[in-house]
């Protein structure tokens, strides 16, 4: 009975003709029912928007060093004369521990100005601009979430770092999804010797433990190359290691769809390989590929962070969340300057959001599984 009910058309929305709603729209509907997954999606949209606008929002260049502000705590904000203000820092030397102690100078409010001119950058990578969302007058500094050991603004670095951290994993997975889908489809659809060779290759690649292989490859990367090249190479490594699992899953799906009666019907009508693959196999496997891909992104983001953290990934002066976390390795750093851990917070949020999103898509795609 329960099985019978599952097979029956969905007639919950009695007022409309559910029959005319394509499957993907039904999936979107089911997805929207899961509040956790929707919130994951919203968080990701926010994160990626911030990433795109990072140069506009960041008040300082991520590498701007100001030794006067080493380990400066987050700036205190306040209201004065109807304006948002921050306060300058009074520095005193702790003569016992030989450390600077900072305290806000509450007597001297500094107005925070909006839409100010700052360092030049290219908006969205194209339009030259020097407009920034906010800033304080020359001579003072605002560190919304504090500064690091060189007095670099953590807020600006966090934004700049997201450009690498949020794209590298994403692009890496995208590439591995493309490779995995093509190889998996070829393997599953044509079978025979092609399948055999591909499967042997995957088996060989899978005989390497992935993390060590990953580290080995990363260590093999040339050191002195520009950031973009290194970014690209690490992306390729992430993609190279990730595609095998996806190829196997796509292969299994494609084999199932290939054996399905509707595919047989298309072949019986004279449909070409191209027709069958593009009309029946890819569209049906697509939702599965999206799910697997989405759930692979958090792992890839984590890989980048870990690599950079270990000094094998993105290298300074470039900045990613992993690079930033190198400064937060010790108990002292964390207990004295807890804001150094913020990249982890953002990392957790983005990873969690991807998991929630992927989980929601999976449930929406396959509601009875």
């Amino acid at each position, binding site marked *: *009975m*329960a099985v*019978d*009910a599952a097979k*029956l*058309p*969905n*007639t*919950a929305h009695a007022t409309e003709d559910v029959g005319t709603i394509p499957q993907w729209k039904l999936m979107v509907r089911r997805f929207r029912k899961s509040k956790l997954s929707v919130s994951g999606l919203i968080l990701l949209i926010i994160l990626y928007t911030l990433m795109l606008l990072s140069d506009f929002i960041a008040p300082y260049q991520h590498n701007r060093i100001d030794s006067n502000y080493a380990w400066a705590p987050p700036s205190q904000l306040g209201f004065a004369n109807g304006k948002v203000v921050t306060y300058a820092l009074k520095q005193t030397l702790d003569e016992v521990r030989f450390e600077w102690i900072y305290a806000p100078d509450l007597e001297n409010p500094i107005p925070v100005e909006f839409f100010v001119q700052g360092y030049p950058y290219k908006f969205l990578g194209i339009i030259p601009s020097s407009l920034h969302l906010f800033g304080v007058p020359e001579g003072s500094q605002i560190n919304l979430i504090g500064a690091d050991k060189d007095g670099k603004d953590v807020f600006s670095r966090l934004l700049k770092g997201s450009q690498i951290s949020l794209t590298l994993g994403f692009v890496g997975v995208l590439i591995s999804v493309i490779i995995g889908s093509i190889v998996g489809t070829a393997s599953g659809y044509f079978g025979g010797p092609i399948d055999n060779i591909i499967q042997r290759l995957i088996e060989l690649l899978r005989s390497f433990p992935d993390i060590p292989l990953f580290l080995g490859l990363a260590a093999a990367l040339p050191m002195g190359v520009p950031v973009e090249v290194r970014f690209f190479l690490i992306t390729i490594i992430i993609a190279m290691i990730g595609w095998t699992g996806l190829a196997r899953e796509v292969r299994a799906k494609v084999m199932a769809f290939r054996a399905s009666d509707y595919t047989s019907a298309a072949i019986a009508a004279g449909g070409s390989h191209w027709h069958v693959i593009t009309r029946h196999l890819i569209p049906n496997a697509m939702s599965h590929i999206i799910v697997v891909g989405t759930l692979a992104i958090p792992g890839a983001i984590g890989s980048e962070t870990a690599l950079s953290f270990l000094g094998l990934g993105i290298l300074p002066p470039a900045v990613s969340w992993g690079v930033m976390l190198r400064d937060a390795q010790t108990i002292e750093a964390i207990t004295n300057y807890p804001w150094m851990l913020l990249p982890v917070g953002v990392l957790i949020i983005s990873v969690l959001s991807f998991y929630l999103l992927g989980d929601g898509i999976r449930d929406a795609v396959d509601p009875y599984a």
Partner: protein
Amino acid sequence: MTTQATSINLTSHDDVVRVEDLKVNFYTQLGVVNALNGVSFNIPRGRVLGIVGESGCGKSITGLSIMQLVVAAGRTEAGRIMFREFAGQEPPINILEYGKNSPEMRKIRGNNISMIFQEPMSSLNPCYTVGNQIEEAILLHQTDDKSEASKRAVEVLTKVGMPNPDRIAASFPHELSGGMRQRAMIAMALSCNPTLLIADEPTTALDVTTEAQILDLMRGLQSEIGTSIMFITHNMGVVAQMCDEVAVMYMGRVVERATVDDIFYEPRHPYTISLLQSIPRLGRSKGRLSSIEGSVPDPYSTTPGCSFHPRCPVAIKGLCDTIVPEETIVDAAKGHTVRCHLNS
């Protein structure tokens, strides 16, 4: 509306089970399904009652309700299931008063009432040997002695016609064919000499020749041991071969109850008649089959009046589509009742 069903008493004190006005709803994500809308019937002791109907009519749910094995989404809203372990037991036990996992219910399950299912391929746990799974029931209800239990398991395997019972007992389910597995299931079900055996489409997944073997076996064992059987099926041929009494179900209601001869030769409900007319019969002339128009309505909708009226060729406008027909007696002596306005 009051239902008359419970007041119809065509039954003696020797019914193994009497189901009275059973109502079960399923609460699913897509809505509420009225799986059973007041089902009443009785299973006379030592007889085979066939429950026949198309998919989704609630026949399996009825069987599972007696075992209290309906999944969590299904809730019993009303009704009684009166069980008499031995003839004349007074008062009978209302099974529904026991909790699903209560010790009382577990003592009935597998011991007094046992059940076999449609899919012989998936009815046995692949991780344990056939013998182990049969012994499990014996150890639970009959004896604490392990060697005694395994001896009885082999005995009961012999009884169901296993050619090599010792070897079968030591086999894993995947090593047996579908027919053999169904035999093993029957052996397991009969291992504690139950009062009632509920067989839910036990031969549907089998090939014709194997089906014939299993039906013969069940019929033979039934007349030998005298166990009552509730035989759930959609196949009219199986009903004719296996059953003494028949209850025809449609959309969660029993629409007709009668002896097997009456169902086949003097059916009264238009649904029963249409069903019989729509099956191609061996050795009959060809030509157009008379079919039932339309299809079974989806379970989330509710049909006013007689649930069969939209497909009924003789439905009366203004009556059949508004008022649910009561169960009426056609022949009290033979226990023939029907739920149809044209017969009242």
